[in-house]
Each structure stands twice: as structure tokens, then as C-alpha cells.
């Protein structure tokens, strides 16, 4: 088994959001994650740093990549991983989040990874259990590991984040990925442009220290990174947009709009993608421009780092 040195202590007990982290916390996580990138490419991917530890994945919302990424990350570190399918569980019988938490807590897990449709759910959970809680997405609020893996991907390709101009485009109002990325990229010294139709732009977003645009071409001008977000139709309870066709015309990432960004600009997307709605399908697959697959790959490394650090 490969030898990986012990993680350095982090300021937080839980990973609830990027907002709670300091720059040094972020650097600890990112440098830890870097060690796992090569490991994940090697033949023997198994470590035993979390041997004997119990990780519970508590997903109240359907997820493919985040849940499998956390599951794989835990297993590669040697933890006992239990993923709970909450569609069939007590939640449907009317049990509250706190009661579920208390029940799981009684099983003495070392770490709980939680995704929930309500903002603040991971905070609530963290107040009621003894182990560390990793937020794998709470409502519209935060998705810290996604932002960390995005940062790692950018650093992997551009070697730095400071001084880069990064556009985050699309359904900002419903996006926890956007919020976590705004905090993290701002912290690491990037200039962040937010591009969205006014109906999908949260109020007072500029107070978070970003530039906001409703014209995509202006928002992409001279950007190093173009991060596209998924239209979250499942969260739209009323009409926000006239049609997908019109959205694609004005806010979908197409070659002509990408031309406004820098020539070597990279395309990112947290997935899952709506091809032909928020992104041109050929651009998404363009290996010279798109780093979407790399994001998924580094996601495992980042989650391994977080599990290792917060488990201790």
C-alpha cells in the first residue's frame, strides 16, 4: 500500500460550507488532494488510513456523481462505507432529520456525508451528532467539495487561481455550486463574473464581491474559465424562462459566445449536463477546451482528502 503522510489539523470540525473555511484550511485540503491524484491513476488504489472508520452517506436527494464519488473515496481510504437510500427509509414514514440523525449517531459513525434538499440541513445535522459532518450539498446554499474540486481542476490546468478571470453562468439562484465557488474563488484571488438572466440571479449577489451580467457576451469577455451550471428545472416551481430554445440562444455556451473569452479559456460544468440547453454538445466534448471529465476525476481525490482530514 502506498504511503501517505498524516493530514494536518484543520480549524473546523465539520465541512459545512466554504464560508466557514480559512485560506489555510483550503490549502490543507487542496494539497492533501493533490497527493491522491496520482494514487487514483495507479494500479493499486487502496489505502488503509481510514481502516476501522465508519462513513455513512446520507442522501436525501438523488445524486449519481457526488454519492458514487464519496463512496469510492471512502472505500479507497479503507473506510466501511454505508450509503443510505432514503427514498425507502424512515423519512417517508414521517421521521424528522434530527431523529434520523440521532438514530445514526447511536451507531457511532466517524463521519456522515449528507445531501439534503433544504438549505441549512447539514448545519442542523452537525449540531445533533458527535461525528464530523461533510456537506454534499444543502438546498441552494453550499456544495463545498464541488467548489474544492473545481479549484483543484483549475490549479491543475492553470497552475494558479489568483488573477484569473472566471465566469460562472446559468441558473445561479438555485445553485449551491455557484455560491460555494463564489466564496472559494474570491478567497483564492480570482475575479468572478456571474452571468444569468435576471430571473435566475439572486438578489444583492454583487454584495458577495462579484460582477454580475445579464448579457453573456459581456460576462465572458476575457475570461480564463467559463463555468456552466445546470438549469435546475426540478427546483423551478413557477415560470422563470420562456423556453429552453430561447435560453440556449441567449445563455447557452456556444462557440460564438465562447469567442469572447480568452483563446485558451477552459470550460467547466459540475454535471449532469443538459446538452443543447446550457451547453453546445460539441463544446462539452472538446478535449482541448472542456475539463468536465477531469472535474469528475479530481472529485474523488478531493473527497478522499476531505474524508481523511475531517475523520481525524
Amino acid at each position: 500500500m502506498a504511503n501517505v503522510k498524516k493530514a494536518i489539523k484543520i480549524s473546523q470540525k465539520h465541512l459545512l460550507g466554504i464560508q466557514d473555511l480559512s485560506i489555510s484550511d483550503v490549502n490543507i485540503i487542496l494539497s492533501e488532494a493533490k497527493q491522491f491524484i496520482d494514487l487514483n491513476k495507479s494500479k493499486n488504489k487502496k489505502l488503509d488510513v481510514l481502516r476501522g472508520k465508519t462513513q455513512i452517506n446520507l442522501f436525501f436527494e438523488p445524486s449519481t456523481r457526488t454519492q458514487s464519488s464519496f463512496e469510492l473515496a471512502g472505500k479507497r481510504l479503507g473506510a466501511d462505507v454505508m450509503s443510505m437510500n432514503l427514498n425507502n427509509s424512515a423519512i417517508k414514514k414521517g421521521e424528522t432529520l434530527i431523529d434520523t440523525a440521532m438514530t445514526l449517531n447511536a451507531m457511532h459513525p466517524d463521519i456522515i456525508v449528507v445531501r439534503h434538499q433544504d438549505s441549512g440541513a447539514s448545519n442542523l445535522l452537525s449540531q445533533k451528532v458527535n461525528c464530523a459532518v461533510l456537506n454534499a450539498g444543502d438546498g441552494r446554499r453550499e456544495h463545498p467539495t464541488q467548489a474544492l474540486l473545481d479549484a483543484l481542476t483549475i490549479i491543475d490546468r492553470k497552475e494558479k487561481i489568483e488573477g484569473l478571470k472566471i465566469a460562472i453562468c446559468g441558473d445561479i439562484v438555485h445553485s449551491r455550486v455557484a455560491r460555494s465557488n463564489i466564496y472559494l474563488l474570491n478567497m483564492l484571488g480570482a475575479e468572478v463574473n456571474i452571468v444569468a438572466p435576471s430571473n435566475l440571479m439572486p438578489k444583492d449577489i454583487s454584495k458577495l464581491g462579484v460582477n454580475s451580467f445579464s448579457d453573456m457576451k459581456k460576462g465572458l469577455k476575457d475570461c480564463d474559465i467559463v463555468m456552466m451550471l445546470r438549469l435546475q428545472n426540478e427546483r423551478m416551481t413557477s415560470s422563470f424562462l420562456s423556453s429552453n430554445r430561447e435560453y440556449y440562444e441567449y445563455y447557452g455556451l456556444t462557440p460564438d459566445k465562447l469567442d469572447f473569452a480568452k483563446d485558451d479559456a477552459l470550460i467547466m460544468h459540475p454535471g449532469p449536463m443538459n446538452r443543447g440547453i446550457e451547453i453546445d454538445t460539441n463544446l462539452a466534448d472538446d478535449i482541448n477546451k472542456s475539463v468536465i471529465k477531469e472535474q469528475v476525476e479530481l472529485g474523488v481525490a478531493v473527497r478522499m482528502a476531505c474524508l481523511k482530514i475531517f475523520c481525524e
Partner: protein
Amino acid sequence: MIMKKKYFLNANIIDPQNSIDEVGGLIVDENGLIEAVGKKVNINNIPSREKYIDLKGKYIIPGIVDMKVFVGEPGFEYKENFRTLSEASLSGGVTSVVTMPNTNPIIDNVSIVDFLKRRGRDKAKINIFPTASLTKNIEGTNMTEFGLLRAKGIVGFTDGYKTIQNTRLMSRIMRSAYDLNCLVMQHVEDKELAKDGMVNDGIISTKLGLQGISDLAEKIIIERDLTLLEDFNCRYHISQISSQKSLEVIKSRKESVEFTCGVSINNLSLNENDIGDFRTFLKLSPPLRTEDDRLALIKGINNDLIDVIVSDHKPEDEEQKRLTFAQAATGASGIETLLPLALELYHNESIKLNKIIKALTCNPAKILKINKGNLNIGNEADFCILDINKPWVVKKENLISKSKNTSIEGRKLQGKITNTFVKGEELFKI
């Protein structure tokens, strides 16, 4: 009931209705009525054999009239019943409460009013003034029997936390209320604009990832209702406002139509930042807004644009609050802390004491057309004694209300009621 006469001397007496703000005494007669009050009452008025209470340094104020209170009877007795509400009220100097109709069943017909009055009379020691709903079952479609309900003792009509959305219905409600001389108390919020909202729409809603409620949702309904009032100016009261924008409309319409307006002590004393990390006890309707809004509301009281301060007492059991913010119930328990929290605004020199007491006593009484909230000679002696400087800390385990969902847990307050009298009888003593 014949009782002993009571004599109080040397108190700071504040009775805004009678423009009394002076050091003096109060005499309560054998029937529990006020016999004399003011600076003319001194030691020479007291028969030499009688004992008197020297209240030097303390205040006497009329019993508070709280215009927006939720009591869990009928249907939600586990949150609050008449007895617990009464005890909680007395400890906060509140002697009269206006109860909301959004119980189960809803107070929307004459027969349930009889039940309510009987329960109130048997279980509560304070004065209960029930409201009925504006529409049957609070569905916003058919009017209730304003005239018959009023004849049964209903003081006002409101759909509680629901707004009459249908403009035509609202106009008809105003006409009926005009004909029958009934008070309409409107919760002002455009339902569609505020849909799914939980907190003020702004940087806090963006940061917390919670659906916001725009202050325009409040402004739109106020503008609509005040426009409708131009046609039939019934007795109309805006239950609670929360924003600066609403005040601008109110100011501009004061000349053309007659109406009154209330505000919750929560909106005067807290702002959206207090929600912190998803404190569900601060999920309120209307929501807490910005500090600028809070300051504007204070100014609104000082400029007489806001007439009434209410507790917006909404007891909720812990199970309804130990949830995610989206799932948690709306509202805070507050009747016990209404006056002490309002006194914070006196101590920090935001509002003059007389103005605060006015907004808590005679102003609501006048709107409701009830003879309460004053120290009129010959009136029932509902009053309380206040130690205005007494420091204390709000702790939920010390609250008397059945539900402990206070919005100000841990807050250091200054000023506490030491004795409360209803109809001349001392029902609370610290």
C-alpha cells in the same frame, strides 16, 4: 365582588389617553374600579388607618392591550391554552389580548364564538377580545357574517396570516365592513410574489440559499387596499408592516384616507442578520428585514405613522421548530417579553416612553373601540407596576407560556413588570 380599597402613592404614572405623565397616586375602590389617579392623589387623600403602597421610583401604566395574539384554543391546546396564555400575559403586564381566528376549527361562525367566550371567561383571568375571520374557513372566497359576529362580541375581522388576495372580494369586504361598522385587520402580503418565501429577499436570503420575500409583496397590498379604501373608507387596520417601502406608501396616503397600522416588536428589535445560521425561532411573518428597515419602523412610531406595537405572539412547540428552516413553523412566542423588549427602545433613546406606552395601550384600544388601555376614573382598574430599570436575561426555561419559541433567547433586557392588576385584583406579583 367587594374587595379592600387599594392605595398607591409616589409612582410615576403614565396614562397617554388622559395625558398623564407625572408623579402621583392611584386609588382602586371596593369594586375594582379606579377612584382617583394622578398628582392630586397624595398622602392627604388617604384615611389615616388605611395602609398604602409607596411606589417611589416605580411606574404605573395601564394594562397592555396586545392586538395580535395566537391562542391555541380550540385545536392547538398543546401550543397554548387560555390558562397558560393568561398567566404568560399577566407576567408581561398584558391585561387584554386580541386573539386570532386561525384556530381549529376557525372562528368564522356565531356558534363557535360562544364556545370561545365561555372558555376565555372560565380559564383566562385577563380580558379576551376575540376576532373572527374575514372569510369562511380562511379560504379567501366567501365573507363571514360581520354583523352577527360583531353582535356576539367580535372586535375585529382578519384572516390571520393570510391576506385577502382577490381584489373584488376585498372591495366587497370593505363595503360590508363600512355598512356594519366593523374593523378589518389585514395581513399585508401578496401571496404569489411571496410564494415559498422564508426570509427577507436580499443578501441574507442569497447567502443562506433561502427563498426570499420581497418587501414589494407588502407594499403592493397596502397600495391596493388604501386605493380601495378611497371608495368605502371602512375601519381598516394594517396588522403588521415590516419595511421602509411600506412606510413611504402609508405616509403618502395619510391625508386621503383613514386607516391605522401596527408593527411587531420583533421587527422593531431584530433584523435579518439575527437569523444567523438558520435560527428557526426567527422565521417570522412578515420576515425580519434589514437594519435600515428596522430604523425606519422606529421612525414610523415616532412620526405617528405606526399606531400600535404588537407581540405577534405565536407559540409553537419545539417539534415544529426542530426542523430545517424550510420545514420549520413560522412565528415566535413573545407576549411575556413585549413590554420589556419595547423598553429597550426607550433605554437606547429610540422612542420616548410615553409613545411606547401609547402604542401598547390606548392606541390599540381606540382602534378596537374598547374601553381599555387607560386609567379613566370609574373604569375597571387594569394596570401594572413597572420597575423600569430592573435588569434580567430572557431564558426560555423561565418563560411561562406553554411554548418556548422566543425570538430573543439570551437577550439582556432592562425593565420588568412587578405586579399586574385586572379589575382591581392583583393577579401577578414577582
